[in-house]
């Protein structure tokens, strides 16, 4: 081990992994909530649906599109004043969170919208015919009936977020990306870069496996 990876300090790797996992976990949870909300608004205000409203739909849709098109690395820089305002620093894992969430939530919102559109319109109609309130339709029909697609969507988004954390790492957020860049690339320690990459790969595979497993468990179709 020592010979194969002479420059790797395993404690640092472990610490960086923890940071990456922390950033990913917090941003995934926040992205799920924010993306679900935006996706629901996009779906419900679209044509022929419960809150059909062209004005709100086009506003939310444009905001989502704008944030989805900004390359993540630029988004981080654009968000510096905002991050400074709420986190008070640009260093460390927490400083990466605003950019991670704002970068990923619009992407997930589109996936949520697509998932909701897949729901059989007849089921929504049947629920309306039973005298259900809109909140009942959202929580007892829209979300449960699209859950497998919502979960596979958040799986894809989580994996994208792992990639984003590595990018955020380069600008000072810590984690495996930061390690690979500073210790690996800048100091020409290829073994560090290699170990960091493998660790990220393992995280991504684990997320994909877990996501597929839950999706299959949920799907009773």
């Amino acid at each position, binding site marked *: 081990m020592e010979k194969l990876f002479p420059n790797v300090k395993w404690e640092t790797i472990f610490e960086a992994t923890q940071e990456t996992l922390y950033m990913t976990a917090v941003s995934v949870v926040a992205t799920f909530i924010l993306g679900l909300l935006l996706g629901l608004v996009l779906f419900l205000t679209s044509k022929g649906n419960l809150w059909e409203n062209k004005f709100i739909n086009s506003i939310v849709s444009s905001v989502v599109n704008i944030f989805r098109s900004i390359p993540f690395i630029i988004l981080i820089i654009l968000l510096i004043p905002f991050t400074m305002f709420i986190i008070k620093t640009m260093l460390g894992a927490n400083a990466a969170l605003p950019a991670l969430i704002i970068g990923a939530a619009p992407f997930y919102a589109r996936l949520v919208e697509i998932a909701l559109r897949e729901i059989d319109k007849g*089921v929504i109609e049947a629920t309306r015919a039973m*005298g259900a309130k809109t909140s009942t339709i959202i929580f007892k029909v829209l979300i449960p*009936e699209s859950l497998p697609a919502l979960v596979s969507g958040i799986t894809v988004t989580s994996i994208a977020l792992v990639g984003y954390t590595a990018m955020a790492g380069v600008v000072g957020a810590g984690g495996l990306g930061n390690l690979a860049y500073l210790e690996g690339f800048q100091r020409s320690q290829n073994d560090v870069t290699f170990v960091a990459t493998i660790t990220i790969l393992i995280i991504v595979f684990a997320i994909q496996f877990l996501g597929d497993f839950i999706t299959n468990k949920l799907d*009773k*179709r």
Partner: protein
Amino acid sequence: MIKLSNVNKIYKVKNSKIHAVKDVNLNINEGEIFGIIGYSGAGKSSLIRMLNQLEKPTEGEITIGSKIISSIKGSELRKARQEIGMIFQHFNLLWSRTVKDNIAFPLEIAGVKKQEINRRVDELIKLVGLEGRENSYPSQLSGGQKQRVGIARALANNPRVLLCDEATSALDPETTDQILDLLVDINKKLNLTIALITHEMHVIEKICDRVAVMENGEIVELGSVLEVFKSPKAEITKKFVRQVMDPSENENVIAHLKENHPTGKLIKLKFLNEEVEKPLITTLIRKFNCEINILHGKISQTHIGSYGELFILLNGEENEMQNALNYINEYGAEAEVVIQNGKTIS
């Protein structure tokens, strides 16, 4: 029970208007099974959806019981909807819920207590004959079973009205009959008013008391099923009646009879209801000095009575035959001379 007055529905599509339902006036009585038949695009779907305001009428008033359905909204509308059951062509069950939970859904919406829900669900499962399938998911059920779940779900909140939107159109003939039997059964047991739409005359024939025929958004014919079957007036109604009476069969029969019976009058008799059971032929033979041959006959059983056709061959003196014909008409059956001495009359 259900009353529609001057109901209109107009859809606005880019720069044009579609008049889907035109000036419909309708009364559906309590406890009756009322059928609305029409081809797709006739407006029947819009019509039935206005009965629980899934679609709002553009004009006109709809009342169910004492509630003016067409003008209520918000919680009052939701409450009213809970008292109107509805079943659908594609069942519209939630795939994420088991049979039990699907049936429990409207009860949850109505805010019924958990214990009471369980009791009611068990009752409904028995009513529709789904014992043993409580914990299955819809994907594990056949079409007929899915519709049974749909029916149980629609009946959960003890509605007084059941709306059926092409409820059997996605089922095979045998399953269709089972579901129709179930509908008649609950109609009797619960004194439920049923309004259904369909494009199959078979459904009307089998379970409906009265029928309305829709074409281009208008009701073109309305009456008791037997009446409409016996003497359809509108062209479209005749088409629908032919669906079940199969005229091509009659044409074949007539052609065949024409060849084999060169003399005498071939008469087509139409019977309705109790006339079918009265001994017309016996009387004819006893009273008149004619030869009578029964050639071909068919009786259709509808929900409220039977309707039959009989082909007989009359041979004898012209006078005597005329008397016999007059007698038949007095008797209440409808007689039509189809062939006379080997020549087609009509």
